């Protein structure tokens, strides 16, 4: 029993001293990481700015005004009304065929 108390009385102070040293070292380390955190915050902000900048560039490049201008440069022209051909919707099959005794013939 006495032996056990003796061991505990040696181990506990050693453990306490070790923990204190670890705490001091870790706290010190953490306290000096503020600069790193600041740098990371700045990097995040810079990345956000770049993202916003690119977003505006994409929006600008894909705007209808830009596309219109680019199309004109590439030689596209607006069609005149006569150049626009509208395809009539397809008629249901039964309206477009004539029944024959042995076959179905498409009407011209």
């Amino acid at each position, binding site marked *: 029993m006495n032996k056990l108390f003796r061991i505990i009385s040696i181990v506990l102070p050693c453990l306490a001293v070790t923990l204190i040293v670890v705490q001091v070292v870790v706290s010190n380390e953490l*306290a000096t990481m*503020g600069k790193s955190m*600041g740098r990371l915050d700045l990097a995040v902000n810079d990345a956000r700015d770049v993202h916003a900048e690119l977003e*505006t560039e994409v929006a600008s490049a*894909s705007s209808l005004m830009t596309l*219109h201008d680019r199309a004109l440069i590439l030689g596209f022209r607006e069609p005149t009304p006569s150049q626009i051909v*509208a395809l009539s919707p397809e008629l249901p099959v039964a309206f477009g065929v004539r029944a024959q005794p042995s076959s179905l013939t498409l009407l011209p």
Partner: protein
Amino acid sequence: MASYWRASFLFTVFVVAFALLVMRLFYWQVISADRLQKQAASQHFIELNVPAIRGGIADKDGNPIVINQPAFLSYAESRLIKDVHAFSEKVASVLSLDPKELASQLSDPNRVWVPLSHKVETAKMTELKNLNLPGLGFEKEPKRFYPEASTAAQLLGFVGSDVNGVDKGYFGIEGYYDRQLRGTDGMIRLEKDAQGVPLLIGEEERLPPQDGRSLNLWLDKAVQQIVERRLSEGIEKYGAKQGSVVILDPATGGVIAMASLPSYDPRNFSEYDKSLYSNPIVASSYEPGSTFKTLIMAAAIDRHLVTPNTTMDESGPVQVGPDYIRTWNNQYHGQITLTQVLEYSSNVGMVFVARKLGKDNLLSAIKGYGFGVPTNIDLEDESSPELRPDNQWKEIDEDTASFGQGIAVTPIQMVRAVASLANGGRMMEPHVVKEIIDENDKVIPIKPKMVAQVVSPETARIVTEMMVSAVDNGEAKFAKPKGYRIAGKTGTAQIPVAGHYDATKTIASFVGFAPADHPKFVMLVTLREPSSSQWGSETAAPLFFNISRDLFTYWGIPPQ
């Protein structure tokens, strides 16, 4: 005795000193507590404002119309500047400032911090940074970016500053949805060391910003561009002072396009006349003229007082007291049906209809269509001209109202009323915003809202046919796209000036929808004081049909 006085004196001194001490402590701990706490906190903590990002605005397909772009407030700290004049010369040349004025501000000993320019774009900021000038600083101050430049300016509104210099939306969508778009600023409070560097294991409080909500509109960017281009061409061709076009989806009340010219550029709004800021489609009133006839005709048919085949005698002007009501061209056709009344746009015929309706029915119909009260469109600048009180309507007022004179409406009220005819008599509340997207990307739809069933579906169908006939056989038939069934009506209203109508100044308009059987859109075109011709059939109607042609192609609507 002497020792008693000495003891009393000493006691009194102690009491007074104690009282002074208590008073001083009371001053520090109670009266100045807040100030001292703030001072202490400022020595131990950094407080950073984290501005919320203003929400964007996109069209119906999610294409951006308004987004944010990085920009900066550029400032100078006088105490860090070595040579004020050299500094002023260099900075002023980049920011287009007056170097002398800047130098005098920087030399003022009472100013330690001088703002140089707001919303400086990244390119200029980089140029300034490359000057490597001590005392020159930047702070983020995002600004609005418009990929389509000034498109839909009066619909969108703009972002300016309020009295505290904080961004605020004005007019249009930016004004109406300002609270939703702006969000709520956040804050970061960090404990710092003696050098001002944040302590990672120190006290920390973070209140994240709530970014503004984004808006998806009913607007179709391509249609808006078509409308603005055609309107600009139309104004030039017909020599009009001002023009506007509004296109609604009759089934939902969604605003597909809305444009007025002249307009302004929201990027440089301060350089334009303030009168251009408000949107005339919702904020200005006009007399609708003959376009109003369709609504009164529908009211009379809905009450079973007339039918399209009812005939009337159009043999000459109608006398009302000392006044005569004539047709627009002073030509008379004898016995005509009410369908022909719309085809000929006969004022005399409409007086016949108004008299069939009677005063009570006429006023009830006008109010039923929503005239006299705002439409509740989600735009900041909406206003509505008031109708005259019921007891002040004279016989001449009833007669002239039947053909749209002597009554003022806004374009949005007019197009909404006609949209109800295109939508089976169901009148919808007009809306610009289709969905709100919150900060967690949750989509909150704004459901279409029916306001009233203004006429029966059968009446709407009958009047639609009459309007198709008015287009096919009316004055504007020469401009109509071939093969399409378009329901519409021209209008030419004289402008009241100082209590009388100016015979030479008119507002030409055309309202209609297409395809007539399954309307995809309803559109109102108005041109103020066109100089090539004063008639709606020769100005607004061709413009309406030009825009319609483009829309048929864009939406792939084939001829019927």
